[in-house]
Structures are given as structure tokens and as C-alpha cells.
């Protein structure tokens, strides 16, 4: 293990606000990951696809207080959840992301490390975020399975 802290001096503290979604996979990739080798046809409504091997894939979106998540859930012919993949994830980090005036106060606070926006921030350690919205979304999809499947 090697750890090089950057927080030695208060001036080094820089707030950053990521923007733009993290895209993990396309809808097609998700469908193949959920039902490998199957072909797909449109289901009972937009965002629903019937797999040739039986079952469906539903592309759904959930909107939380601070995040937007697009995910795919595969449901077996028997109506049970087979697999869930997250396609896109976009989290904002509190009010500073929305309020440019507040954000602007930090510009120039540290000449050596300016405020960064619109960059891809990975490796974020933080108090655990909940996947409750996805769980609720999946429950809703499963409840509507018959009508979503169509025919």
C-alpha cells in the first residue's frame, strides 16, 4: 500500500463538482449480458424487450434527490428477477453543484489546484449512498411484468 495525502495544507482543499453521467454499458450490451445469445423483439411498451429465450428486459430510469440512474432489469419467463445492470449513473454532490454563485467563491482559492468541472471523477470514497430507488424501481417493474411483456 502507498498513500500520498494531499490534505496537508488547508489551501490544498479544493471542492470539485462532477458533471455528466458515467456510462457503463449500452442497452444492447445490457440485454446480451442478461440473456446471453438471445435475440430481442419489442415488448408491450417502449423500453421493454422480449428475449427469444423467454423473459424480458426492461430499461428503466430512477430519479433520486441527488442522482439519476438508468438501469436494465431482466425478468425470467416465470416473472422473477434474473439480473440487474446499471447503464448510466449520475450523482450530484449537494447544493454546490446547482448553485453557481456558491461555487464561484472557490475559484482561485488554491492557485495550484483550480476548481475542476466537467471532468470524470473516479474513486470517490464517501458515506454510503443507497440503492433504494433502484430497489423500488425493480419492484415496480416486477409488479407490472404481465402488462410489460405484452401478448
Amino acid at each position, binding site marked *: 500500500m502507498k498513500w500520498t495525502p494531499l490534505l496537508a495544507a488547508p489551501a490544498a482543499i479544493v471542492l*470539485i463538482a462532477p458533471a455528466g453521467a458515467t456510462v457503463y454499458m449500452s442497452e444492447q450490451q445490457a440485454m446480451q449480458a442478461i440473456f446471453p445469445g438471445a435475440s430481442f423483439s419489442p415488448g408491450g411498451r417502449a423500453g421493454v424487450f422480449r428475449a427469444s429465450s423467454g423473459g424480458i428486459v426492461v430499461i428503466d430510469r430512477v430519479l433520486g434527490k441527488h442522482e439519476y440512474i438508468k438501469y436494465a432489469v431482466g425478468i425470467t419467463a416465470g416473472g422473477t428477477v434474473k439480473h440487474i445492470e446499471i447503464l448510466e449513473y449520475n450523482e450530484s454532490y449537494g447544493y454546490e453543484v446547482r448553485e453557481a454563485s456558491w461555487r464561484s467563491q*472557490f475559484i482561485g482559492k488554491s492557485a495550484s489546484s483550480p476548481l475542476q468541472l466537467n471532468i470524470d471523477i473516479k474513486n470517490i470514497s*464517501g458515506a454510503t449512498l443507497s440503492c433504494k430507488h433502484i430497489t423500488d424501481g425493480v419492484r415496480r417493474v416486477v409488479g407490472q411484468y404481465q402488462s410489460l411483456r405484452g401478448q
Partner: protein
Amino acid sequence: MRRARPLLGTIVEIEVDGVAQADAERAIARAFEAVLLVQRLMSFHDAGSDIGRINRAAFRKPVTVHPWTARVLRHAAAFHAASNGLFDCAVGFELMRRELLPSNDLDHVCKGDFSAVRLSEDRAVRLMAPVAIDLGGIAKGYAVDRAIASLRAAGVRCATVNAGGDLRVMGEIDQPIHVHVPGGGLLQAGLLRNGAIATSSSFATVGRNGALESPDSTTDRRAYSVVAPSCIVADALTKILVQSAEPQHPCFGRFGATAFISGGDLQSMAA
């Protein structure tokens, strides 16, 4: 290649570099299976999991658990001893009382501590008092370690696994690490190579006295982070850091970890 799935009550993200696409896909799928197994074994909610069975039956008779559950319980015992009880997984009673965990079939549970837990060589668990164990403060870190081990076994040499903020990086590159400060944004915290970091907050931690701040509390918006060689150590030690507020606590050095608290001055910066 980066993939994410909802597991362990959070979003688990796995990123792999330096291997062909099909190999990366397979390695990531297997790593997610390891995380799923940890979830199945250690879920408090599932009466049939190792933890569900311990909490329901181990006060009356021995309950044999999976080697992974036994390993987490041994770690939990070590952290409990080293922190003079600050780290305690026998907080099921407090969490149920606050309705943070369901109490189905667990009416017999009383307040107690982890010293009631006995684990034999053959992985049989006994509870000497009717306590309930919740591994919420440690299992996520262990799941990250299992995912990294699975990736390494699959030939991956450069990867990141992040379970809702408990993260571990593998590979000979310094990875920039950011810390999410409650209500305050992201801080550039440092560079990490072949190690783990976990961050907690006072409202995400239940103390030994059952104290728990509301997420809306404005009294403590600091982020409590621990960097350690493994994620189970980082995850568990954040609970000791939140309660002690002492980055110099001897516990951290003992487990090869470094602790820091950040974000306390952000509110004044914003004012």
C-alpha cells in the same frame, strides 16, 4: 471497462484495465458473484443467511457458518478488542430499536456487546447472551476485498472496486482519491496505490451507546476516512474514527492504517 450493479444496499462499481474485453467481462462477472455471496451470507434481513441464523438460533445452539462469515467475525472480534469495544457488531438491538433494521422473529434480542460471541475452530458460532449481530459496518469492506481477490485470480492486475464509497485499488499506478464530504462536495484527498480507503460520517454510524445523528444534522458534516492495506480494515476502522474523532488513536497504526478527518472547515469557507 467499468460495470456497476446494485448490491449490498448500495451501488457496487468494478473497473478493470489492461485485459482483453471478453476477459474483463468474465472477470468482472465473477467478482460481482463474490460480492453477491457476501451479501447472501451476511445479510441481516435474510433469516436464512449466516447472520440471520446466528441471530435467531445461536443463543440456544451452535450455528455453523461459511468460512467467509467466520473470517469476518474473527476480524470483528479483533477490532472489538483493539478498540476497547468502540467497534462492535453486536448493535442489532440498537438498530432494531431505531427501526433501521427489521425485527422479525427477533423479539428475544437484548442489549449486549460482541464479547458474547464465541467462534470455534470448526466455524460454529455460539452467543453467550441474546444479542443480534449486524455486519453492516464491516461486510462491505470484506466484499470489496473478495472482489479484488477474484479479479486477481482471473489474471487482472489493474482494477478498482468501489462499494458505495468503500473502495480498493489494485495496480502499480497512483490513483487519485476523492472524499465525499456530507453536504459539502468532493475533496481531493490523496493518491493511493494497492490499498483501500473507506469514509463514514457521524450520521451513518451507530455508536456503542446507540447514538446516531440525523442526516439533516448540521452539527457534524465532516468525513471520517481510513486508508488501509485491505478494505475490511478501512471499513471497520472508520467506525472507530467517527466515535473517537482521534486520527492518532493507536488502533490505526496497529492495523497498518492511516486516518484523517476532512471537511470540517467547508461550512465556514462557504459562509
